[in-house]
């Protein structure tokens, strides 16, 4: 009988622990954290895979614009714990509004329950990661940024049409990546750090929001009549996108 009792205790120890058992004590447990990427226009209109290419938007330059394609890259997402440690997720995410499956990232690494003080991520790739041809999935997505303007990958591709000052429909290609200035290439990614206190007590979903309108207004009001196509090799346009991009992202709801 002693052996039976021993086996039962062993079984209890071996199989008794799971994510739901932390109630009543503060022992950190693993928690799956996923990220949900959402898009809005001026924080008022949800831009979704169902409506992104049918809605019309007015930017602060009074351009009436239509979005045909929106893809962007997020990398190095990190959660910062109150004890000073960091949960650094390995995955990058190419968000494509034409593909609803890309609006959620489920990293392989789990976080632990407890108190956190911030979330950070990179829009695009930093110089260490922005290596031409290094990512098979991005290669087949035709996400490369030409070598002649610095190589690596696009950070964003926003294509569409707008009504120009003559009332004609014109295309725009708002593409962002490395900035090239007469053969000198400047990193052009944006690091976002959001200081915020939150607690993960269970599996959680963190919303990363893009306000698309910010690309066109803050601090620079971007008139598509002036700059709409051929922007990839336009150094000033690339740097201005970087300036406007600083306020594009925010952290939305954390659900768990």
């Amino acid at each position, binding site marked *: 009988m002693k052996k*039976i009792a021993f086996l039962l205790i062993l079984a209890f120890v071996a199989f008794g622990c799971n994510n739901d058992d932390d109630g009543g004590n503060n022992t950190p447990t693993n928690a799956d954290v996923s990220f949900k990427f959402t898009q809005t226009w001026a924080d008022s209109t949800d831009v979704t895979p169902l409506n992104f290419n049918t809605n019309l938007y007015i930017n602060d330059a009074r351009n009436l614009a239509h979005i045909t394609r929106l893809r962007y890259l997020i990398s190095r997402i990190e959660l910062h714990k109150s004890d000073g440690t960091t949960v650094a997720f390995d995955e990058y995410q190419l968000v494509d509004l034409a593909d609803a499956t890309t609006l959620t990232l489920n990293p392989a690494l789990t976080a632990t329950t407890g108190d956190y003080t911030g979330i950070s991520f990179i829009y695009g790739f930093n110089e260490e990661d922005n290596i*031409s041809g290094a990512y*098979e999935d991005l*290669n*087949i997505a*035709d996400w*490369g940024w030409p*070598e002649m303007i610095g190589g690596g990958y696009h950070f964003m591709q926003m294509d569409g049409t707008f009504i120009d000052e003559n009332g004609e*429909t*014109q295309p725009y290609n708002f593409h962002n990546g490395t900035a090239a200035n007469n053969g000198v290439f400047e990193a052009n990614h944006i690091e976002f750090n959001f200081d915020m206190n939150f607690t993960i007590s269970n599996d959680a979903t963190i919303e990363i929001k893009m306000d698309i309108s910010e690309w066109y207004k803050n601090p620079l009001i971007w008139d598509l009549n002036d700059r709409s196509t051929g922007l990839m090799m336009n150094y000033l346009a690339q740097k201005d996108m970087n300036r406007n991009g600083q306020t594009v992202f925010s952290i939305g709801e954390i659900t768990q």
Partner: protein
Amino acid sequence: MKERSRKIYCFLIGIFTLTLFVSCSSDDPKPEETETDDGYVATPQPLTVPAIFDQFLPIPSIPADNPQTVEGVALGRKLFFDPILSGDGTQACASCHKPSNSFTDDAQFSIGIDGIEGTRNSMPIYNMAWNFNSKLFWDGRANSIEKQALEPVTNPVEMHNTWENAVGSLQSHGEYPELFNKAFGTPTITKELTAKAIAQFERTLISANSPFDRYLLGENSLTPQEINGFAIFMDEARGDCFHCHGNEFNPLWTDNIFHNNGLDAIITDKGLGNVTGDPNDDGKFKSPSLRNLAYTAPYMHDGRFATLDNVINHYSEGLVYSRTIDPLMKAVSTGGVHLTEPDKADLKAFLLSLSDPSFINNPDFQNPN
């Protein structure tokens, strides 16, 4: 009591052992995928991945229920070239998908067994295992090679047969039941097994040995004209071809998705729009790969351009606006990017450097019958 304890002890050990087996199952290597439900095992024949693909592309996509096998590929090859699948026994897949034309043909519209023209240009076939979104045909209406292979047999302007009749012809044939038995472990032929075999053969049609491939691998050099043509291809202000047609790190030379490339002001063939029902998809067709252009004229979904020069001229000065035109056709208001004649010539030279004579002459891809 002691005996009872011993039984309980053995029972618990058994349960524990069983638990170990069950809990570890997800990490176990899968059983040989060539094994059929009744235990038959054909000979595995994994695809040979070219060096340039191995370097930059994900591993090829092979459906779990149709692994590549020696017997399956051989059967598929025989079927591909055999007119037995057509209604009157005169037309094979290869009639419109000829090896010498990189598995398309040289007609604007292929002609079916009843002498009727189709409405779309026959698509070339190669590197299908790297078509990761699995949307086949110009309009993406088939979501696997296996499903694509089913359609021409019953299409009234192509092979104009029924699958019942086609399977009957195969079943009563002197060789096919045994070949199916070797490939799939059953002599009972179905349309699904027929399509699986053809799909296995089509996945072996890999083209990655063009002069440009060898240039990327450091095995040969290109002419200055070809190198300049590649620069035009990659220049957003000139060719801007790379947004839809790959680059040196996407050696498929296609994005495998759908665009309206400014061919018509009035859309008469909705393409993808017919499949999705979304008016925003009207006039969109799959970007074809730019490999093997030397063998695949005429061009476009409707074969309207007889030459590569016509194609380049279209993008240079022939674009026309329609509501769903891709914004990447950015110079539509002036008809295109207006390349200079030397730039056009260089671009053409580069494009032709993507053609692969070893592919169309590969003895493994010719008619075995």
